[in-house]
């Protein structure tokens, strides 16, 4: 387990190298607006803003210092 982190809606989330945003956010637990469903990028439920790009959390690798926020409708 490394000590790399990103933030999700302001919350600090630790991740392992090579993990997706979704894996790290789900492991962090607690109440989260991340709506994970299919895990393969098909359902588009887990869309988040990662920096300026709108991406599937289940496909996007976590990077240190990334600023991630839940998708706004």
């Amino acid at each position, binding site marked *: 387990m490394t000590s790399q982190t990103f933030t999700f809606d302001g919350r600090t989330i630790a991740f*392992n*190298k*090579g*993990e*997706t945003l*979704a*894996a790290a956010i*789900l*492991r962090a*637990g607690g109440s989260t607006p991340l*709506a*994970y*469903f*299919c*895990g*393969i*990028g*098909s*359902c*588009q*439920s887990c*869309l988040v803003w990662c920096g300026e*790009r*709108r*991406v599937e959390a*289940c*496909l*996007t*690798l976590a990077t240190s210092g990334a600023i991630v926020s839940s998708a706004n409708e």
Partner: protein
Amino acid sequence: MSDVIRNIDVLVVGAGPAGIAAVARLGRSNVSVLWIDQRNKPGGAIHRRPATPATSIALPNSVKAQWQRLEVLITNSPVTLTPQTTFVGLDSEGVAVLEDRISGASLQVAARVIIFAIGAVERVLPRPGWTLPNVWTAGGMQVMLKETGEAPKGRILVAGNGPLTVALGAQLAAAGNAPIAVVEAGNPTAKLQQGLRLLSNPRLLIEARYYLNTLSRHDVPWKRGTRIVSIERGEDRLHVRTTSARGDETFIVDHVALHDGIRPNSFGLFERKSAPLIIRAGDCREALGAVSAEVDGAQAAAEALAHLRGEKPSPTPARIEAERRAQLVLKELFRPAYTPTLENLPDDTVLCRCEGGTVGTFKAMLTRNPGISPREVKLNGRFGMGSCQGRFCADNVAALLGQAQGGDVTIEASQLTGIRWPIRPVQISSLIRDGNDADTTQPKTRTK
């Protein structure tokens, strides 16, 4: 957009078993190949690799053996994967538009052949509460388990129809968090004798026994002939009401994994009369599983090579036909007695999870216009108009429409969704971003 890349013979989309087998075969010939996948590593869904090497989950030998074979193919192939790149569509001249999701730019590729190996999508039937938080697909829970080596915390219920629920239940148990039950709408053991006689596919039997033994060792009940009536949110847990011939039972859990089969991820995939030649391989052609996909991928590569040389393609391998027969037996074994209908689904049941369209909305449309066309159902009711492009609703809505308009007519999901690109969502900024920017990664191609 960047200049068109023109020296590509074959574009292979997807790095699961079919894609890996295809590029391995192509790599032994003197053709230029561009190989892309939406993820950063090969494997697809069935062979989702752990993020850290230390974590791995319990798998039957046949599955591990396939990955070992595929890993050798990848290592020995001169073709390298261009990762985190998706196929968006073909323009009117047959030029493929791809999205590089790392740099956020698009690429144009004029390939002579395109092999799609983009796998399957799960079927999930509509049930009250299926769109609540902490309700995932079984496949979604499985890939997360494979990626992290960890099961979700808390109480888990796995439910639906088909062998994947048994596999997931066993894998969760082996990972230290056995589900409190696996709920199965079918009743495969009632027909097991019959099934066993027809099932001349020992690998499937061995895998089934491996998973069922694991469930049994962990005292996970396999509740057959049982279906979910509704999922409701309690104070901080999910209340899942089920029913069977034995009566009703409610499970109070933290996670629900749903699964009702798989179907090809063929949404938006098109046929063409002019170049490039389009070939589908693996589950996106026909959902027959990983072993068939490996054979299919090699076959697709052979077809591509034959086309490039102006030769006739070789016939479909007998192995595919054998797998097809085995899958049909499995499907028959697991066939559930229950089908969702407009009568047995409450009006507030969500049909379209992206746009929120409900059974009630759908029924109202039908009442106003009983002869409504599938396209009108989409355009007027927004069913299938959301970001998933109908992947998780079009089959269900088409089935309900077919029931309502005369049960002998089968309406295909594609009649509702239409067939056009983008075949998956793409950011407009990617389409207009110049791929020649300094920080755009160039795709890895193997040239002649």
